[in-house]
């Protein structure tokens, strides 16, 4: 019986009369990779902001490893489509930025940042400022910043949404590698169905007006995954199913 890391118990949010997220319950297993897919306005970012503690839900609770963390921050790793690297810090100092925001950065923190950067292909850029990096490299730095916070749960909100298709595929494979190495639990928002299937163990499909979960699908595709995965019959079948859910049974 796998352990539940995160549990949403009937959390919902109304913004000015619009139901951004209707009361939602969801349990996320430790170490799993869960994709949340849906069109804009389906409440996926609201759900993330509630889990991160940025938005207080109208009702319900957010429970992380048995402890209620509703409307409190500092419990999860969090990454957006915008890398949010600060231009005045080097790559190394950007990786330790989350630490710097809560306490003094130690030599161990720096050493870890360098180790992670070297391990995942950014060792040569530790002293560079972010302005010198490409979009894909910047997202890697942003992800490492998320990683070294040592939070078990990582919330990734369309982190590769702004990258070109080629770079995006590279980043997806890279992310799967890091996920496998570190054993973290990932909650990954995307509107790209292919991406949600390629990455996840499980796909939560959401729908707008009102924002809600409409399906929760297990992803049977074997790991490790690669470009070949995109052509497997299981992949196509799952894609047809998700597209059908998103577009009202069109498939």
């Amino acid at each position, binding site marked *: 019986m796998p352990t539940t890391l995160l549990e949403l118990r009937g959390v919902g949010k109304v913004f000015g009369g619009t139901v951004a997220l209707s009361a939602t319950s969801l349990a996320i297993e430790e170490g799993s990779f869960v994709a949340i897919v849906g069109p804009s306005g389906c409440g996926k970012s609201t759900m993330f902001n509630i889990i*991160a*503690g*940025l938005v207080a839900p109208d009702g319900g609770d957010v429970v992380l490893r048995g402890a209620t963390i509703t409307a409190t*921050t*500092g*419990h*999860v790793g*969090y990454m*957006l489509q*915008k890398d*949010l690297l*600060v*231009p*005045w*810090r*080097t790559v*190394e*100092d950007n990786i330790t*930025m*989350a630490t*710097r*925001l*809560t306490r003094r950065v130690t*030599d161990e923190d*720096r050493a870890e940042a*360098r180790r992670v950067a*070297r391990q995942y292909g950014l*060792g*040569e*850029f*530790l*002293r*560079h*400022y972010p*302005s*010198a990096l490409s979009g894909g490299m910047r997202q890697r730095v942003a992800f490492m910043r998320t990683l070294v*916070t040592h939070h078990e749960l990582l919330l990734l909100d369309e982190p590769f949404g702004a990258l070109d298709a080629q770079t995006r595929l590279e980043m997806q494979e890279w992310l799967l590698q890091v996920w496998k190495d570190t054993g973290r639990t990932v909650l990954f928002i995307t509107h790209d169905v292919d991406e949600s299937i390629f990455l996840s163990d499980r796909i939560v499909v959401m729908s707008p007006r009102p924002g809600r979960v409409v399906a929760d699908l297990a992803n049977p595709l074997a790991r490790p995954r690669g470009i070949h995965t995109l052509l497997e019959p299981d992949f196509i079948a799952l894609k047809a199913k998700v597209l059908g859910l998103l577009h009202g049974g069109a498939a």
Partner: protein
Amino acid sequence: MRRRVLLNVGVPILSLVLVLVVWQLIVVGFHVASYIAPRPREAITSVTSQWSTLWPLILGTIRETIYGYVIGAALGFVLGVVMAKIAIVQRLVYPVILVSQAVPVIALAPVLVIILGFGIVPKIVIVTWIVFFPVTVNVLDGLGHVDPDLKNLARVYGASRWRTFVQIEVPASTTPLFSGLKIGAIYAVTGAIIGELAASEGNSLALYQEHANSNLNTAAVYGTTMVMTLIGIAWFLLVVGLEIWSTPWQRRTVARRRWRRGSDGGAG
């Protein structure tokens, strides 16, 4: 690198030399009498020949400028921060500081003399008065435009307001902050000279120029003006230098060694 230095230093110097050349051509070409406008060389000589008299006066003006500028910049920064952070303070204070800047400083000077007497204090107050405003406005503007997503990220990581301010908001506002500091630097000397005109009983650069003027020593009037201008430009360049030194990321792709405390790695 050499080409960049040439462009950034050589061209501005060349343009200033051109101003002197045009000045010379106008005076000579139109046969302007030297009591109306001296030649550049005469203006410069009027300064160098009186250097031992002028130097203490120049130091006095520089002192007033520095004191007033540092106080004004610090006050401006603090005021900008407090106004950005506390909405009611902003509503209360903004009209007052706008009015303070609408008051002609020349008209203000005699009032300051009445209150503060002669000496260095009224001059410092005038410089402060002029300098704080662009700093406040730019800091207020800069802090108001920090990326809200970046502030949210800091919140998600559990950052305190203080750490968010120091680590995110202040460095994100350096460009507007230095805009304010540079505008202030250029006007600071003007403030000091206005103060000297209104509130000097003994010697000052401004009074030296007034004496030269009443003695029809036009060359010295021009020369003193050049000296005042040079003080202003030197001060401005100092602030520009401070900006370049403190914001290496705006020109460099790789950090210098001293910017990475405790690092040992990175082939860079």
